[in-house]
């Protein structure tokens, strides 16, 4: 019986170019996203079919999320936010298929995405607003003697954003997949033990089925949370200062 954490093992496929199972599923996610969306919209129908409706719903959903959080100005980041949402969502969903590798269960992947978001925020904020961008750390209407503390707190909260953004996604995907494997392992172990214990095997199976449903929810929800937070952080780059 495999260990619950074996599924997170990186296995080289083409070692020369560092191509691993993780890389394979990143490429797979991009192929699924671009291929799926292009296939869904190939008819460019005025009255959309099912697949085109899904593509348009995804587009409108991400556009609405970004517009609500960062306003019409924020729409210049739409390709980035849409790519992020689709990448995280597709990677999470691909991970739900048994035997598939979950890219987002790798902390380095989620952290890199978080750094991409925060890097965009900082660089765009500095280019657009110059030193005014640092107004982000100086809330207005705070007594002067409190300012040093507030600025330190704001700075820590800003720096912890990529950490929380990446760890939230990573931990959710990791824990969910471990739990699924553990319950699946119970079924196998109970059946293997035979006799009275084998009769109990359906219990963890039901649990695994229920967890599977929960994990689909988590996979979609965490992609959404990642996207919403990205939009909120991008809003800081557009409108620094409280």
């Amino acid at each position, binding site marked *: 019986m495999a260990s*619950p954490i*074996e599924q997170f093992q990186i296995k080289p496929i083409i070692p020369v170019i560092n191509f691993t199972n993780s890389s394979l599923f*990143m490429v797979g996610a991009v192929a699924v996203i671009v291929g799926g969306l292009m296939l869904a919209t190939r008819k460019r129908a005025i009255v959309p079919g099912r697949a085109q409706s899904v593509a348009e719903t995804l587009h409108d959903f991400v556009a609405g999320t970004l517009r609500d959080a960062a306003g019409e100005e924020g729409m210049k980041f739409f390709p980035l936010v849409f*790519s992020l949402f689709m*990448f995280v969502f597709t990677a999470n969903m691909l991970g739900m298929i048994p035997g598939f590798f979950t890219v987002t269960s790798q*902390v*380095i992947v989620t952290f890199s995405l978080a750094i991409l978001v925060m890097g965009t925020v900082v660089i765009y904020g500095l280019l657009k607003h110059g030193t005014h961008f640092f107004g982000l750390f100086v809330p207005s209407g705070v007594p002067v003697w409190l300012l040093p503390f507030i600025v330190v707190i704001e700075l820590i909260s800003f720096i912890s954003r990529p950490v929380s953004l990446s760890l939230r996604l990573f931990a959710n995907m990791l824990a969910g997949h471990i739990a699924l494997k553990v319950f699946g392992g119970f079924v196998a172990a109970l059946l293997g033990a035979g006799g009275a214990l084998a009769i109990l095997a359906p219990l963890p199976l039901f649990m695994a089925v229920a967890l599977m449903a929960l994990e689909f929810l988590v996979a979609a929800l965490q992609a959404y949370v990642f996207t919403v937070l990205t939009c909120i952080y991008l809003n800081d780059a557009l409108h620094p200062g409280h």
Partner: protein
Amino acid sequence: MAQAQTTHAATEAPGGAHEDVGFPPFQTENFPGQVLWLTITFVVLYVLVSKLVLPRLSGIIEHRRQTIAGDLDEAAAMKSRAEEAGVAYEKALSEAKARAQALAQEARSKVSAETEAKRKALEADLGKRLAESDAVIAQKKAEAMTNVRGIAVDTATAIVERLTGKAPAPQAIEAALDQPKA
């Protein structure tokens, strides 16, 4: 990492030997490769999404929005054309009505003028005949009156003859009759 390793070791114990060590997501030797491929794939995704997928998607949505707006405009134009046609029809109808009324009025006045003329002619004719009748009556009356004198002369002569036994002189009777009535 140490804790992760012990967990790993503990969970690995029944599963058999693995040459790798450490909790896979924290194996730093795999980080560069994953960052490299994430960068490659995400850049490819971003380029494809921003150059291919989103232009097409927003093109479809925009095209639909324009089609709907165009259809609505066309419908509004058609509606206003229909309203114009309705107004024109109303106008034509009221013109026709007015013309019909004028024609009817004309016909009526013509007929009544004719009737009036006929009535006048009739009245004139009647008046003439009345006058003629009046003349005849007057003549007859005059004739009758002369007859009355004759009758009176005769009657007076007869009465006087009966009373006196001899016929009076006609001149005396004439004279008596010419006397004004008391």
